[in-house]
């Protein structure tokens, strides 16, 4: 009898792993950048071609980087979440910096005009070099950088309200506490 139970046993082991696997998120890829200095970039501003967005100026403040493009359907999905996130971020923070990745600038401006702009500043990364420095796999991706300029968090894929409420906002409050106090 026992050898005939073997297939059932193997199946139960596999099923257990599948059950555990359901609770995991394969998209949560650890970034080699976590706890490392955030790569700096100086890129043209989406809204004024003669100005630049320089993230080195954000030192001393907690800020978020969001990689997006009008060509990316998941970014459209994420947009309302970003709008809500932007309204929750304290004024003392650096807000959300958008990295408009390999996109058509005119269309990007039109989209933000039409649907609202969650970003304090938007940098134009036409060539995608900054995205390479940041190790971006695909859009959207979101990073949290602390006051010392260290990357503390990375999320791949569209943000949800749950991720914002459970992970991003608590982290931002924690990181901002010593600055305020």
């Amino acid at each position, binding site marked *: 009898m026992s050898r005939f139970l073997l297939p059932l046993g193997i*199946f139960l082991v596999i099923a257990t792993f599948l059950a555990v696997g*359901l609770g995991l998120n394969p998209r949560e890829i650890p970034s080699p950048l976590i706890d490392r200095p955030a790569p700096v970039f100086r890129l043209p501003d989406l809204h004024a071609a003669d100005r630049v967005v320089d993230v080195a100026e954000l030192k001393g403040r907690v800020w978020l980087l969001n990689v997006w493009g009008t*060509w990316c359907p998941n970014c459209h999905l994420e947009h309302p979440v970003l709008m809500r996130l932007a309204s929750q971020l304290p004024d003392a923070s650096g807000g959300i910096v958008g990295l408009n990745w390999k996109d058509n600038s005119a269309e990007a401006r039109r989209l933000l005009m039409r649907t609202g702009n969650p970003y304090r500043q938007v940098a134009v990364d036409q060539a995608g070099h900054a995205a390479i420095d940041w190790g971006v796999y695909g859009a959207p991706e979101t990073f949290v950088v602390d006051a010392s300029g260290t990357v503390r968090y990375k999320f791949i894929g569209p943000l949800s309200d749950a991720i914002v409420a459970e992970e991003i906002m608590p982290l931002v409050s924690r990181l901002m506490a010593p600055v305020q106090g």
Partner: protein
Amino acid sequence: MTLLPEVGHFALILALCMALVQSILPLVGAARHIGNFVAIARPAAGLQVLFVVIAYACLTQSFIVSDFSVAYVAQNSNVDLPLMYRISGVWGAHEGSLLLWVLILSLWTGAVCLFSRSVPPVMAARVIAVMGLVSVGFLLFLLLTSNPFERLFPIPLSGRDLNPLLQDPGLAIHPPMLYVGYVGFSVAFAFAVAALMGGRLDSAWARWSRPWTLVAWVFLTVGIALGSWWAYYELGWGGWWFWDPVENASFMPWLAGTALIHSLAATENRGIFKAWTVLLAVFAFSLSLLGTFLVRSGVLTSVHAFATDPTRGVFILVFLGVVVGGSLLLYAWRAPRIRSLGGFSLVSREGGLLFNNVLLSVATATVLLGTLYPLVIDALGLGKVSVGPPYFNSVFIPITAPLALVLGIGAMARWRKDSLARLLTPLRWLALAAVAGAVALAASFYDLRWEAIAGIALGLWVTASTGFGIWRRVAGHGGLARVPLAFWGMSTAHLGVGVFAVGIALTSTFSAEEDVGLDPGTSHQMAGYTFRFDGVRDASGPNYTARAGTVTAFLGDRQVAVMHPQKRVYRVQRNPMTEAAIDAGLFRDLYVALGDPLNDKGSWSLRLYYKPFVRWIWLGALFMAFGGILSACDRRYRRVASRVRQGAQTTAAAGA
């Protein structure tokens, strides 16, 4: 706004009710010997099929008339979408593909009802009931977690369009083919479970389920080949197999199904490997279900990246547990009673089939391990890993090479006992010829790498030994007319393995690819061909705009092809898509994909490929599928079926 979506939804609920009747009453009837309950299996199944067809027709109609009040239609269609893709859009996302799955399952059930008249009524009722149980699970899944008829309010003016990747004829027919194969294994599964329930595991069981298994396997083979062909021309990477979890999900049931059709041959002809064959039938369908779980639950990441939802994952996992766990429990309870008859010597047809089954099972386990490994490591908290082609290629080739080596010999061996001398002596010259042919072929590419020669020699050896087997059979049995169709089927499929192996060996070793930046009017030379870039212009389709390049290929001074690779942007979803241009040929493909513009003067980056013998990979798969059809059409299944009916009547008479 019509009521059709509500009609469809209601039809699904009725189908669920009928599926419950179809599964519960016949099982009770079979256990308690209640004739009326047994007899209800066919009519109940017939009604279930009818209701599912109605539901499916309703959703299709909503797509055709672009009824955006249905959320699923609004998310996956658009008024500008061509009619063909509005029809195939039904299975363009999760809810609709599940509905297609349910439709195909009920069509298989209908086919079993129609073509199982020769099977004893109680056995047939059990088979239909088991298929009904599977239907219950999937209908519940549809209705509880993935209702395709959900309404949307306010009604959007326009839909979000079908995923551009799916707007392609190859991918439009790929999922139905694949599903017909996947779901077809449910018939073999139902026969196995019914036989376990009834305790009747004789050769007759194998004879009944073999043609069903063959047909399912044929569809799965064609479905996988279509998927591979689609990935080749649509993804723009020039590869034909990526060992992606979603691909593996279809490959595992195929490997198990291949093992099953071989072990069914042994069980049918010699009454051996009975318990093992039952187990394989359970495995083949379980792996189909596991594939569904992997694709639909999002536990693994994949280039196919389907939308995922954890509650759906939990549901499929529970369902998987009930179906697979339940049938394996039944197996553990009943299988110890199965007695296989007759021994055999290792050098015999049985020995060959055993070898085939051991290797194919190991291959299946290898793919399963590689597919689930990232999940297991993640679940144990050991980190995130991905297992890619390096693992699969290095493990898979040593397992399948011996299979190819023995294939021709095993197919020629006699049942029970044969001698190595009789089998091998006439083959030595063929072996030599295969190696010589391989060296000659490799030399024609001016490249004598040993991997290439070994691979080609293996393919030629499979072809030659199978050809010799055909000659021996025809010569030894008094002419062509006496050779059964099943033998032609087996031989054709085995020739397909040879063609497939030659294709892989040549493509993987002698392909050339280069990324080049070209100004309009300039040329690049690769693999003996000259590619001239003639610039890029604008183009447009019904729902996209595109930049189309022109590349003219020359062999020497002779123009061989004008190709138009495109970069498309679909208007609604805005994702850029690469449409590679391919000049296909039996002996080589030229393949050009458009990259990015390099400057304002019309220079573009291009990716050029030269792929020798790549068509042989899919040609081999088609040979295998055609062989399967020939075998399934063999006259003996009809003849045997009627003999079994007589046998059953005699037994019944003796029992009375």
